[in-house]
Protein backbone atom coordinates (compact mmCIF):
# COMPACT_ATOMS: atom_id res chain seq x y z
CA UNK A 1 0.00 0.00 0.00
CA UNK A 2 1.27 3.41 -0.87
CA UNK A 3 1.03 6.14 1.75
CA UNK A 4 -0.02 9.38 0.23
CA UNK A 5 1.32 12.54 1.80
CA UNK A 6 -1.32 13.47 4.34
CA UNK A 7 -2.23 16.98 5.33
CA UNK A 8 -5.29 19.08 5.87
CA UNK A 9 -5.74 22.68 4.92
CA UNK A 10 -7.71 24.94 7.20
CA UNK A 11 -10.85 24.68 5.03
CA UNK A 12 -11.25 20.92 5.15
CA UNK A 13 -10.76 20.43 8.93
CA UNK A 14 -13.46 18.16 10.37
CA UNK A 15 -16.40 19.73 12.22
CA UNK A 16 -18.07 18.38 15.36
CA UNK A 17 -20.67 15.60 15.14
CA UNK A 18 -23.20 14.64 17.83
CA UNK A 19 -22.33 11.49 19.82
CA UNK A 20 -24.14 8.27 18.80
CA UNK A 21 -27.61 8.15 20.41
CA UNK A 22 -27.05 4.83 22.14
CA UNK A 23 -24.19 6.29 24.24
CA UNK A 24 -26.00 9.25 25.78
CA UNK A 25 -29.11 9.74 27.94
CA UNK A 26 -30.88 7.12 30.09
CA UNK A 27 -30.44 4.32 27.58
CA UNK A 28 -26.75 5.11 27.21
CA UNK A 29 -26.25 5.22 30.97
CA UNK A 30 -28.03 1.88 31.46
CA UNK A 31 -26.03 0.27 28.69
CA UNK A 32 -22.75 1.53 30.06
CA UNK A 33 -23.45 0.84 33.74
CA UNK A 34 -25.93 -2.02 34.00
CA UNK A 35 -25.68 -4.13 30.87
CA UNK A 36 -22.18 -3.49 29.53
CA UNK A 37 -21.23 -7.17 29.52
CA UNK A 38 -22.73 -10.57 30.19
CA UNK A 39 -21.28 -10.63 33.73
CA UNK A 40 -22.60 -7.15 34.43
CA UNK A 41 -26.06 -8.09 33.12
CA UNK A 42 -26.15 -11.16 35.39
CA UNK A 43 -25.16 -9.02 38.39
CA UNK A 44 -27.84 -6.44 37.56
CA UNK A 45 -30.55 -9.10 37.38
CA UNK A 46 -29.28 -10.69 40.61
CA UNK A 47 -29.28 -7.33 42.40
CA UNK A 48 -32.85 -6.60 41.30
CA UNK A 49 -33.91 -10.04 42.53
CA UNK A 50 -32.26 -9.53 45.94
CA UNK A 51 -33.94 -6.16 46.36
CA UNK A 52 -37.25 -7.75 45.38
CA UNK A 53 -37.04 -10.51 48.00
CA UNK A 54 -35.79 -8.26 50.83
CA UNK A 55 -37.37 -4.82 50.60
CA UNK A 56 -41.13 -5.61 50.23
CA UNK A 57 -41.22 -8.09 53.16
CA UNK A 58 -39.33 -5.61 55.34
CA UNK A 59 -41.76 -2.83 54.50
CA UNK A 60 -44.65 -5.23 55.11
CA UNK A 61 -43.28 -6.07 58.58
CA UNK A 62 -42.18 -2.60 59.61
CA UNK A 63 -44.91 -0.40 58.15
CA UNK A 64 -47.96 -2.10 56.66
CA UNK A 65 -48.37 -4.66 59.46
CA UNK A 66 -46.71 -2.52 62.12
CA UNK A 67 -48.61 -1.49 65.21
CA UNK A 68 -47.97 1.88 66.76
CA UNK A 69 -50.18 2.10 69.84
CA UNK A 70 -50.43 -0.05 72.90
CA UNK A 71 -49.65 -0.39 76.62
CA UNK A 72 -47.03 -3.11 76.32
CA UNK A 73 -45.96 -5.91 74.02
CA UNK A 74 -49.10 -7.87 74.78
CA UNK A 75 -51.24 -5.19 73.12
CA UNK A 76 -49.43 -5.92 69.87
CA UNK A 77 -51.33 -8.48 67.81
CA UNK A 78 -50.45 -9.94 64.44
CA UNK A 79 -47.25 -10.58 62.57
CA UNK A 80 -45.98 -7.04 62.13
CA UNK A 81 -43.53 -4.93 64.06
CA UNK A 82 -44.54 -3.67 67.47
CA UNK A 83 -43.77 0.02 67.76
CA UNK A 84 -45.93 0.56 70.80
CA UNK A 85 -42.86 1.16 73.00
CA UNK A 86 -42.05 4.22 70.90
CA UNK A 87 -45.17 5.89 72.19
CA UNK A 88 -44.33 4.95 75.78
CA UNK A 89 -40.59 5.20 75.95
CA UNK A 90 -39.44 7.68 73.29
CA UNK A 91 -38.52 10.19 76.00
CA UNK A 92 -35.97 7.81 77.49
CA UNK A 93 -34.52 6.98 74.10
CA UNK A 94 -33.95 10.65 73.38
CA UNK A 95 -33.23 12.19 76.79
CA UNK A 96 -32.19 9.30 79.06
CA UNK A 97 -33.16 9.95 82.66
CA UNK A 98 -33.29 13.70 82.30
CA UNK A 99 -36.23 15.14 84.30
CA UNK A 100 -39.07 15.40 81.80
CA UNK A 101 -40.04 18.93 82.88
CA UNK A 102 -36.48 20.06 82.03
CA UNK A 103 -36.08 18.44 78.61
CA UNK A 104 -36.76 21.81 76.94
CA UNK A 105 -33.17 22.64 77.91
CA UNK A 106 -31.83 19.79 75.81
CA UNK A 107 -34.08 20.81 72.92
CA UNK A 108 -32.91 24.41 73.19
CA UNK A 109 -29.24 23.32 73.24
CA UNK A 110 -29.91 21.25 70.12
CA UNK A 111 -31.61 24.15 68.34
CA UNK A 112 -28.74 26.51 69.24
CA UNK A 113 -26.30 23.96 67.86
CA UNK A 114 -27.32 24.81 64.31
CA UNK A 115 -26.31 28.50 64.33
CA UNK A 116 -23.11 27.44 66.16
CA UNK A 117 -22.15 24.96 63.44
CA UNK A 118 -23.37 26.94 60.44
CA UNK A 119 -20.45 29.39 60.10
CA UNK A 120 -17.95 26.51 60.02
CA UNK A 121 -19.85 24.16 57.74
CA UNK A 122 -21.46 26.52 55.25
CA UNK A 123 -19.97 29.16 53.04
CA UNK A 124 -22.62 31.84 52.73
CA UNK A 125 -24.06 32.48 56.14
CA UNK A 126 -25.21 35.99 56.98
CA UNK A 127 -23.44 37.49 59.99
CA UNK A 128 -20.71 34.87 59.85
CA UNK A 129 -18.37 36.81 62.11
CA UNK A 130 -20.91 37.10 64.92
CA UNK A 131 -21.96 33.48 64.54
CA UNK A 132 -18.33 32.43 64.92
CA UNK A 133 -18.15 34.23 68.23
CA UNK A 134 -21.41 32.55 69.17
CA UNK A 135 -19.94 29.13 68.40
CA UNK A 136 -16.92 29.88 70.58
CA UNK A 137 -19.27 30.41 73.51
CA UNK A 138 -21.68 27.64 72.51
CA UNK A 139 -19.98 24.89 74.57
CA UNK A 140 -20.34 27.02 77.70
CA UNK A 141 -23.98 27.73 76.90
CA UNK A 142 -24.65 24.05 76.20
CA UNK A 143 -23.01 22.86 79.41
CA UNK A 144 -24.96 25.48 81.34
CA UNK A 145 -28.23 24.34 79.77
CA UNK A 146 -27.56 20.64 80.31
CA UNK A 147 -26.07 20.74 83.80
CA UNK A 148 -27.83 23.80 85.18
CA UNK A 149 -26.79 26.06 88.04
CA UNK A 150 -26.98 29.86 88.10
CA UNK A 151 -30.76 29.81 88.50
CA UNK A 152 -31.48 26.72 86.45
CA UNK A 153 -32.29 23.55 88.36
CA UNK A 154 -29.10 21.50 88.65
CA UNK A 155 -29.22 18.15 86.90
CA UNK A 156 -26.60 15.49 87.59
CA UNK A 157 -24.62 14.35 84.54
CA UNK A 158 -25.65 10.83 85.49
CA UNK A 159 -29.10 11.77 84.23
CA UNK A 160 -27.73 12.33 80.75
CA UNK A 161 -28.57 9.40 78.56
CA UNK A 162 -30.22 8.20 75.42
CA UNK A 163 -29.41 9.87 72.16
CA UNK A 164 -28.56 13.09 74.01
CA UNK A 165 -25.58 11.34 75.56
CA UNK A 166 -24.40 10.03 72.16
CA UNK A 167 -24.66 13.53 70.73
CA UNK A 168 -22.90 15.23 73.64
CA UNK A 169 -20.01 12.78 73.73
CA UNK A 170 -19.82 12.47 69.94
CA UNK A 171 -19.86 16.20 69.24
CA UNK A 172 -17.38 17.02 71.99
CA UNK A 173 -15.10 14.24 70.76
CA UNK A 174 -15.31 15.40 67.15
CA UNK A 175 -14.72 19.06 67.93
CA UNK A 176 -11.77 18.31 70.23
CA UNK A 177 -10.11 15.44 68.40
CA UNK A 178 -9.48 17.38 65.20
CA UNK A 179 -7.26 20.11 66.72
CA UNK A 180 -5.56 17.64 69.07
CA UNK A 181 -4.95 15.32 66.14
CA UNK A 182 -3.46 18.17 64.08
CA UNK A 183 -1.09 19.10 66.92
CA UNK A 184 -0.05 15.46 67.38
CA UNK A 185 0.57 15.07 63.63
CA UNK A 186 2.70 18.21 63.55
CA UNK A 187 4.41 17.13 66.77
CA UNK A 188 5.32 13.80 65.26
CA UNK A 189 7.16 15.65 62.48
CA UNK A 190 8.74 18.19 64.80
CA UNK A 191 12.47 18.78 64.78
CA UNK A 192 12.45 19.03 68.56
CA UNK A 193 13.05 15.51 69.92
CA UNK A 194 11.05 16.03 73.10
CA UNK A 195 7.89 17.01 71.23
CA UNK A 196 8.42 14.33 68.60
CA UNK A 197 8.90 11.57 71.14
CA UNK A 198 5.91 12.63 73.21
CA UNK A 199 3.71 12.60 70.10
CA UNK A 200 4.94 9.22 68.92
CA UNK A 201 4.50 7.61 72.34
CA UNK A 202 1.04 9.09 72.82
CA UNK A 203 -0.14 8.01 69.37
CA UNK A 204 1.28 4.50 69.54
CA UNK A 205 0.15 3.77 73.10
CA UNK A 206 -3.37 5.14 72.74
CA UNK A 207 -3.87 3.59 69.31
CA UNK A 208 -2.51 0.27 70.47
CA UNK A 209 -5.09 -0.20 73.22
CA UNK A 210 -8.81 -1.03 72.81
CA UNK A 211 -11.09 1.90 73.58
CA UNK A 212 -13.05 -0.23 76.01
CA UNK A 213 -9.99 -0.73 78.18
CA UNK A 214 -9.28 3.00 78.04
CA UNK A 215 -12.80 3.66 79.30
CA UNK A 216 -12.49 1.01 82.01
CA UNK A 217 -9.27 2.42 83.35
CA UNK A 218 -10.16 6.08 82.88
CA UNK A 219 -10.93 6.52 86.55
CA UNK A 220 -7.49 5.16 87.39
CA UNK A 221 -5.47 6.91 84.68
CA UNK A 222 -6.99 10.36 84.56
CA UNK A 223 -6.34 11.33 88.19
CA UNK A 224 -2.62 10.78 87.52
CA UNK A 225 -2.63 13.64 85.01
CA UNK A 226 -5.04 15.88 86.90
CA UNK A 227 -4.56 17.92 90.07
CA UNK A 228 -5.64 16.04 93.18
CA UNK A 229 -8.75 18.13 93.84
CA UNK A 230 -10.14 17.84 90.32
CA UNK A 231 -12.53 14.96 90.01
CA UNK A 232 -14.15 14.46 86.63
CA UNK A 233 -17.66 13.12 86.36
CA UNK A 234 -18.15 10.07 84.23
CA UNK A 235 -19.39 11.96 81.15
CA UNK A 236 -16.34 14.22 81.16
CA UNK A 237 -14.08 11.20 81.62
CA UNK A 238 -15.65 9.52 78.61
CA UNK A 239 -15.19 12.68 76.54
CA UNK A 240 -11.51 12.91 77.48
CA UNK A 241 -10.84 9.26 76.69
CA UNK A 242 -12.77 9.17 73.43
CA UNK A 243 -11.05 12.40 72.34
CA UNK A 244 -7.64 10.96 73.15
CA UNK A 245 -8.46 7.76 71.31
CA UNK A 246 -9.83 9.45 68.19
CA UNK A 247 -7.07 12.06 68.05
CA UNK A 248 -4.40 9.35 67.91
CA UNK A 249 -6.10 7.99 64.78
CA UNK A 250 -6.69 11.51 63.52
CA UNK A 251 -3.00 12.34 63.89
CA UNK A 252 -2.02 9.46 61.63
CA UNK A 253 -4.66 10.36 59.04
CA UNK A 254 -3.40 13.95 58.96
CA UNK A 255 0.22 12.83 58.89
CA UNK A 256 -0.63 10.99 55.69
CA UNK A 257 -2.00 14.24 54.29
CA UNK A 258 1.07 16.19 55.39
CA UNK A 259 3.37 13.73 53.67
CA UNK A 260 1.47 14.15 50.40
CA UNK A 261 2.35 17.85 50.24
CA UNK A 262 5.32 18.40 47.92
CA UNK A 263 8.51 19.72 49.49
CA UNK A 264 8.31 22.69 47.13
CA UNK A 265 5.29 24.03 49.02
CA UNK A 266 7.29 24.20 52.26
CA UNK A 267 10.21 25.79 50.41
CA UNK A 268 8.07 28.39 48.67
CA UNK A 269 6.51 29.33 52.01
CA UNK A 270 9.94 29.57 53.65
CA UNK A 271 11.44 31.54 50.79
CA UNK A 272 8.67 34.12 51.16
CA UNK A 273 9.60 34.61 54.79
CA UNK A 274 6.58 32.89 56.37
CA UNK A 275 7.28 31.47 59.81
CA UNK A 276 6.53 27.90 60.87
CA UNK A 277 3.02 28.48 62.22
CA UNK A 278 2.13 30.83 59.38
CA UNK A 279 3.18 28.38 56.68
CA UNK A 280 1.40 25.54 58.44
CA UNK A 281 -1.81 27.49 58.88
CA UNK A 282 -1.90 29.23 55.51
CA UNK A 283 -0.17 26.83 53.14
CA UNK A 284 0.39 23.31 54.41
CA UNK A 285 -2.58 22.42 56.61
CA UNK A 286 -5.30 23.69 54.22
CA UNK A 287 -3.92 21.35 51.59
CA UNK A 288 -3.10 18.46 53.91
CA UNK A 289 -6.51 18.57 55.59
CA UNK A 290 -8.24 18.67 52.21
CA UNK A 291 -6.46 15.49 51.16
CA UNK A 292 -7.28 13.91 54.53
CA UNK A 293 -11.02 14.65 54.47
CA UNK A 294 -12.09 11.05 53.73
CA UNK A 295 -9.89 9.73 56.53
CA UNK A 296 -10.93 12.47 58.95
CA UNK A 297 -14.62 11.83 58.38
CA UNK A 298 -13.97 8.12 58.65
CA UNK A 299 -12.50 8.74 62.11
CA UNK A 300 -15.43 11.01 63.03
CA UNK A 301 -17.95 8.35 62.05
CA UNK A 302 -16.04 5.70 63.98
CA UNK A 303 -15.89 7.98 66.99
CA UNK A 304 -19.61 8.69 66.87
CA UNK A 305 -20.48 5.00 66.80
CA UNK A 306 -17.97 4.31 69.58
CA UNK A 307 -20.04 6.51 71.87
CA UNK A 308 -22.21 3.42 72.38
CA UNK A 309 -19.34 1.92 74.39
CA UNK A 310 -20.12 4.22 77.32
CA UNK A 311 -22.29 1.38 78.58
CA UNK A 312 -19.16 -0.28 79.99
CA UNK A 313 -18.80 2.43 82.62
CA UNK A 314 -22.46 2.41 83.52
CA UNK A 315 -23.84 5.18 81.34
CA UNK A 316 -26.98 4.58 79.32
CA UNK A 317 -26.78 5.89 75.79
CA UNK A 318 -29.50 5.14 73.24
CA UNK A 319 -28.22 1.60 72.75
CA UNK A 320 -27.94 1.03 76.49
CA UNK A 321 -31.49 2.26 77.00
CA UNK A 322 -32.83 -0.05 74.32
CA UNK A 323 -30.96 -3.05 75.75
CA UNK A 324 -32.40 -2.27 79.15
CA UNK A 325 -35.87 -1.94 77.70
CA UNK A 326 -35.94 -5.22 75.80
CA UNK A 327 -35.05 -7.07 78.98
CA UNK A 328 -38.06 -5.50 80.68
CA UNK A 329 -40.95 -8.03 80.85
CA UNK A 330 -43.36 -5.49 79.31
CA UNK A 331 -41.26 -5.25 76.15
CA UNK A 332 -39.33 -8.50 76.19
CA UNK A 333 -38.25 -9.75 72.78
CA UNK A 334 -38.68 -6.54 70.82
CA UNK A 335 -34.99 -6.31 69.96
CA UNK A 336 -35.53 -6.20 66.18
CA UNK A 337 -37.74 -3.13 66.46
CA UNK A 338 -35.48 -1.27 68.89
CA UNK A 339 -32.26 -2.03 67.09
CA UNK A 340 -33.76 -1.02 63.74
CA UNK A 341 -34.78 2.24 65.39
CA UNK A 342 -31.34 2.83 66.98
CA UNK A 343 -29.54 1.95 63.74
CA UNK A 344 -31.68 4.48 61.92
CA UNK A 345 -30.54 7.24 64.30
CA UNK A 346 -26.88 6.44 63.83
CA UNK A 347 -27.25 5.95 60.11
CA UNK A 348 -28.88 9.35 59.61
CA UNK A 349 -26.10 11.17 61.47
CA UNK A 350 -23.24 9.21 59.89
CA UNK A 351 -24.68 9.40 56.40
CA UNK A 352 -25.11 13.15 56.78
CA UNK A 353 -21.43 13.46 57.78
CA UNK A 354 -20.41 11.36 54.80
CA UNK A 355 -22.47 13.40 52.32
CA UNK A 356 -21.23 16.65 53.77
CA UNK A 357 -17.62 15.53 53.44
CA UNK A 358 -18.18 14.63 49.79
CA UNK A 359 -19.66 18.03 49.01
CA UNK A 360 -16.78 19.67 50.88
CA UNK A 361 -14.27 17.72 48.80
CA UNK A 362 -15.94 18.86 45.59
CA UNK A 363 -16.01 22.47 46.77
CA UNK A 364 -12.32 22.47 47.72
CA UNK A 365 -11.21 20.79 44.52
CA UNK A 366 -9.26 23.59 42.86
CA UNK A 367 -7.01 21.32 40.80
CA UNK A 368 -9.65 20.63 38.23
CA UNK A 369 -9.29 22.35 34.92
Amino acid at each position, binding site marked *: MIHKPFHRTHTDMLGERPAPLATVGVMGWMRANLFSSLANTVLTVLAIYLLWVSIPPFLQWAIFDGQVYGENRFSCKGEGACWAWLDQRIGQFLYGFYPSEETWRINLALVLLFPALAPWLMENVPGKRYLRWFSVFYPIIAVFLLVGGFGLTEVSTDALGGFTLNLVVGLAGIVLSLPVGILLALGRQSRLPLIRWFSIIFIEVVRGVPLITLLFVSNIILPIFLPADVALNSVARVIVMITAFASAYMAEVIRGGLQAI*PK*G*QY*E*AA*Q*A*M*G*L*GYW*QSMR*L*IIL*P*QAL*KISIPGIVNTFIGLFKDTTLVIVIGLFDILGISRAMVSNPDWLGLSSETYVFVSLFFFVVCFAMSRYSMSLERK*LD*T*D*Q*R
Partner: protein
Amino acid sequence: MSATEQAAKDVPVIEIDGLNKWYGTFHVLRDINLSVDQSERIVICGPSGSGKSTLIRCINRLEEHQEGRIVVDGTRLTNDLKNIDAVRREVGMVFQSFNLFPHLTVLENCTLAPIWVRKTPKVEAEAVAMEYLERVKIPEQAGKYPGQLSGGQQQRVAIARSLCMRPKIMLFDEPTSALDPEMIKEVLDVMVDLADTGMTMLVVTHEMGFASQVADRVVFMDEGQIVEQNTPDEFFSNPQSERTKLFLSQILSH
Protein backbone atom coordinates in the same frame (compact mmCIF):
# COMPACT_ATOMS: atom_id res chain seq x y z
CA MET B 1 25.05 61.04 44.25
CA SER B 2 26.19 61.56 47.83
CA ALA B 3 29.23 59.89 49.28
CA THR B 4 27.22 57.45 51.40
CA GLU B 5 25.06 56.42 48.44
CA GLN B 6 28.20 55.87 46.43
CA ALA B 7 29.60 53.79 49.24
CA ALA B 8 26.39 51.78 49.46
CA LYS B 9 26.64 51.03 45.78
CA ASP B 10 30.19 49.84 46.09
CA VAL B 11 29.41 47.38 48.88
CA PRO B 12 28.40 44.09 47.24
CA VAL B 13 24.80 43.15 47.94
CA ILE B 14 25.76 39.47 48.26
CA GLU B 15 29.11 38.36 49.61
CA ILE B 16 30.07 34.70 49.77
CA ASP B 17 33.47 33.81 51.29
CA GLY B 18 34.95 30.34 51.56
CA LEU B 19 31.59 28.61 51.39
CA ASN B 20 31.68 24.86 51.95
CA LYS B 21 28.72 22.53 52.22
CA TRP B 22 28.30 18.80 52.65
CA TYR B 23 25.26 16.56 52.20
CA GLY B 24 26.20 13.94 54.76
CA THR B 25 29.69 13.01 53.62
CA PHE B 26 29.26 14.35 50.08
CA HIS B 27 31.15 17.61 49.55
CA VAL B 28 28.65 19.47 47.39
CA LEU B 29 30.01 23.05 47.52
CA ARG B 30 33.77 23.54 47.68
CA ASP B 31 35.33 26.79 48.69
CA ILE B 32 32.96 29.11 46.84
CA ASN B 33 33.81 32.82 46.69
CA LEU B 34 31.35 35.07 44.94
CA SER B 35 30.37 38.67 45.34
CA VAL B 36 27.40 40.25 43.60
CA ASP B 37 26.95 43.97 43.12
CA GLN B 38 23.71 45.88 43.23
CA SER B 39 21.79 45.48 39.94
CA GLU B 40 24.19 42.87 38.68
CA ARG B 41 22.75 40.03 36.59
CA ILE B 42 24.53 36.74 37.02
CA VAL B 43 23.84 33.53 35.15
CA ILE B 44 25.09 30.35 36.79
CA CYS B 45 25.48 27.34 34.54
CA GLY B 46 27.13 23.97 34.62
CA PRO B 47 26.36 20.27 34.29
CA SER B 48 23.69 18.75 36.50
CA GLY B 49 24.93 17.89 39.97
CA SER B 50 27.51 20.66 39.87
CA GLY B 51 25.97 22.44 42.88
CA LYS B 52 24.44 25.48 41.12
CA SER B 53 21.02 25.10 42.68
CA THR B 54 22.50 24.33 46.07
CA LEU B 55 24.56 27.51 45.86
CA ILE B 56 21.63 29.85 45.27
CA ARG B 57 19.52 27.96 47.81
CA CYS B 58 22.19 28.77 50.40
CA ILE B 59 21.61 32.45 49.75
CA ASN B 60 18.10 32.37 51.25
CA ARG B 61 18.98 29.56 53.64
CA LEU B 62 16.79 26.89 52.09
CA GLU B 63 20.05 24.99 52.52
CA GLU B 64 22.29 25.31 55.55
CA HIS B 65 26.02 25.65 54.96
CA GLN B 66 28.68 24.28 57.27
CA GLU B 67 31.63 26.56 56.57
CA GLY B 68 32.19 30.04 55.26
CA ARG B 69 30.44 33.36 55.39
CA ILE B 70 27.35 34.51 53.47
CA VAL B 71 26.31 38.13 53.85
CA VAL B 72 23.14 39.25 52.07
CA ASP B 73 22.32 42.96 52.02
CA GLY B 74 24.41 43.52 55.14
CA THR B 75 22.90 40.62 57.08
CA ARG B 76 25.06 37.62 57.86
CA LEU B 77 23.35 34.23 57.57
CA THR B 78 23.78 32.24 60.75
CA ASN B 79 21.46 30.04 62.77
CA ASP B 80 19.84 33.23 64.03
CA LEU B 81 16.23 32.97 62.86
CA LYS B 82 15.84 36.73 62.93
CA ASN B 83 18.63 37.13 60.39
CA ILE B 84 17.19 34.38 58.21
CA ASP B 85 13.78 36.05 58.21
CA ALA B 86 15.36 39.41 57.40
CA VAL B 87 17.20 37.94 54.42
CA ARG B 88 14.15 36.07 53.15
CA ARG B 89 12.11 39.25 53.17
CA GLU B 90 14.60 40.86 50.77
CA VAL B 91 15.29 37.87 48.55
CA GLY B 92 12.69 36.51 46.13
CA MET B 93 12.93 33.04 44.66
CA VAL B 94 11.48 31.40 41.57
CA PHE B 95 11.54 27.60 41.44
CA GLN B 96 11.80 25.11 38.61
CA SER B 97 8.47 23.56 39.62
CA PHE B 98 6.73 26.96 40.20
CA ASN B 99 5.51 25.92 43.68
CA LEU B 100 2.41 28.05 43.48
CA PHE B 101 -0.09 27.35 46.26
CA PRO B 102 -2.80 25.30 44.52
CA HIS B 103 -5.53 26.04 47.07
CA LEU B 104 -5.27 29.82 46.60
CA THR B 105 -6.20 31.94 43.61
CA VAL B 106 -3.51 33.68 41.60
CA LEU B 107 -4.27 36.94 43.39
CA GLU B 108 -4.22 35.28 46.82
CA ASN B 109 -0.88 33.66 45.96
CA CYS B 110 0.49 37.12 45.28
CA THR B 111 -0.93 38.88 48.33
CA LEU B 112 -0.26 36.19 50.94
CA ALA B 113 3.30 37.07 51.89
CA PRO B 114 2.85 40.87 51.72
CA ILE B 115 -0.16 40.60 54.02
CA TRP B 116 1.28 38.11 56.53
CA VAL B 117 4.99 38.91 56.43
CA ARG B 118 5.07 42.60 55.58
CA LYS B 119 1.71 43.34 57.26
CA THR B 120 0.54 45.29 54.22
CA PRO B 121 -3.19 46.15 54.31
CA LYS B 122 -5.16 43.80 52.04
CA VAL B 123 -6.41 46.48 49.65
CA GLU B 124 -2.92 47.81 49.11
CA ALA B 125 -1.44 44.33 48.69
CA GLU B 126 -4.07 43.55 46.05
CA ALA B 127 -3.30 46.74 44.16
CA VAL B 128 0.42 45.93 44.16
CA ALA B 129 -0.33 42.34 43.09
CA MET B 130 -2.45 43.53 40.14
CA GLU B 131 0.34 45.87 39.14
CA TYR B 132 2.84 43.01 38.97
CA LEU B 133 0.37 40.63 37.32
CA GLU B 134 -0.03 43.37 34.71
CA ARG B 135 3.73 43.41 34.29
CA VAL B 136 3.94 39.66 33.69
CA LYS B 137 0.97 40.12 31.34
CA ILE B 138 -1.68 37.96 33.02
CA PRO B 139 -3.90 40.31 35.05
CA GLU B 140 -6.98 38.60 33.56
CA GLN B 141 -6.07 35.34 35.36
CA ALA B 142 -6.10 36.88 38.85
CA GLY B 143 -9.25 35.06 39.95
CA LYS B 144 -8.23 31.64 38.66
CA TYR B 145 -6.51 28.82 40.49
CA PRO B 146 -2.97 27.77 39.49
CA GLY B 147 -4.24 24.39 38.26
CA GLN B 148 -6.22 26.20 35.57
CA LEU B 149 -3.15 27.88 34.05
CA SER B 150 -0.51 26.66 31.63
CA GLY B 151 3.04 26.06 32.83
CA GLY B 152 4.30 29.31 31.36
CA GLN B 153 1.48 31.28 32.96
CA GLN B 154 2.12 29.59 36.31
CA GLN B 155 5.79 30.50 36.20
CA ARG B 156 4.94 34.12 35.37
CA VAL B 157 2.56 34.16 38.34
CA ALA B 158 5.38 32.77 40.48
CA ILE B 159 7.63 35.62 39.35
CA ALA B 160 4.91 38.18 40.09
CA ARG B 161 4.34 36.55 43.50
CA SER B 162 8.00 37.02 44.40
CA LEU B 163 8.05 40.59 43.14
CA CYS B 164 5.05 41.49 45.30
CA MET B 165 7.35 41.33 48.32
CA ARG B 166 9.42 44.06 46.61
CA PRO B 167 12.66 42.10 47.01
CA LYS B 168 16.10 43.57 46.41
CA ILE B 169 17.45 40.33 44.97
CA MET B 170 15.78 37.68 42.81
CA LEU B 171 16.97 34.08 42.65
CA PHE B 172 15.87 31.90 39.74
CA ASP B 173 16.41 28.14 40.05
CA GLU B 174 16.12 26.74 36.51
CA PRO B 175 12.91 28.69 35.88
CA THR B 176 12.30 27.33 32.37
CA SER B 177 13.44 23.73 32.77
CA ALA B 178 9.96 22.35 33.50
CA LEU B 179 8.30 24.21 30.64
CA ASP B 180 7.16 23.10 27.20
CA PRO B 181 9.35 24.67 24.52
CA GLU B 182 6.68 27.10 23.29
CA MET B 183 6.30 28.54 26.79
CA ILE B 184 9.95 29.19 27.54
CA LYS B 185 10.01 32.45 25.64
CA GLU B 186 7.11 34.07 27.51
CA VAL B 187 8.91 33.44 30.81
CA LEU B 188 12.29 34.61 29.52
CA ASP B 189 10.66 37.79 28.14
CA VAL B 190 9.38 38.59 31.63
CA MET B 191 12.84 37.99 33.07
CA VAL B 192 14.46 40.24 30.47
CA ASP B 193 11.96 42.99 31.35
CA LEU B 194 12.81 42.51 35.01
CA ALA B 195 16.53 42.77 34.28
CA ASP B 196 15.86 46.08 32.53
CA THR B 197 14.42 47.50 35.76
CA GLY B 198 17.78 47.10 37.50
CA MET B 199 16.89 44.12 39.68
CA THR B 200 19.82 42.15 41.11
CA MET B 201 19.36 38.68 39.63
CA LEU B 202 21.05 35.30 40.09
CA VAL B 203 19.79 32.87 37.48
CA VAL B 204 20.58 29.17 37.29
CA THR B 205 19.70 28.23 33.73
CA HIS B 206 20.67 26.37 30.60
CA GLU B 207 19.25 29.14 28.38
CA MET B 208 22.48 30.41 26.87
CA GLY B 209 20.58 32.88 24.68
CA PHE B 210 19.28 34.53 27.83
CA ALA B 211 22.78 34.51 29.32
CA SER B 212 24.37 36.28 26.37
CA GLN B 213 21.53 38.78 26.07
CA VAL B 214 21.06 39.74 29.71
CA ALA B 215 23.89 38.61 31.97
CA ASP B 216 26.66 40.89 33.21
CA ARG B 217 28.59 37.80 34.22
CA VAL B 218 28.39 34.09 33.56
CA VAL B 219 29.55 31.76 36.32
CA PHE B 220 30.41 28.21 35.31
CA MET B 221 30.34 25.54 38.01
CA ASP B 222 31.44 21.94 38.02
CA GLU B 223 31.91 19.44 40.85
CA GLY B 224 30.84 21.93 43.47
CA GLN B 225 33.26 24.68 42.56
CA ILE B 226 33.34 27.78 40.43
CA VAL B 227 35.50 26.83 37.47
CA GLU B 228 35.31 30.01 35.47
CA GLN B 229 33.51 33.35 35.46
CA ASN B 230 33.52 35.96 32.79
CA THR B 231 31.41 38.37 30.76
CA PRO B 232 29.09 36.49 28.39
CA ASP B 233 31.04 37.60 25.31
CA GLU B 234 34.33 36.31 26.64
CA PHE B 235 32.73 33.24 28.19
CA PHE B 236 31.14 32.02 24.98
CA SER B 237 33.77 33.14 22.48
CA ASN B 238 36.88 32.51 24.49
CA PRO B 239 36.35 29.90 27.23
CA GLN B 240 39.46 29.32 29.30
CA SER B 241 39.20 25.90 30.89
CA GLU B 242 38.83 22.55 29.21
CA ARG B 243 35.76 21.77 31.27
CA THR B 244 34.03 24.92 30.06
CA LYS B 245 34.86 24.16 26.46
CA LEU B 246 33.48 20.63 26.82
CA PHE B 247 30.29 21.90 28.47
CA LEU B 248 29.74 24.57 25.82
CA SER B 249 30.34 22.12 22.99
CA GLN B 250 27.75 19.79 24.53
CA ILE B 251 24.98 22.32 25.01
CA LEU B 252 25.58 24.38 21.89
CA SER B 253 25.98 21.44 19.52
CA HIS B 254 22.38 21.42 18.30
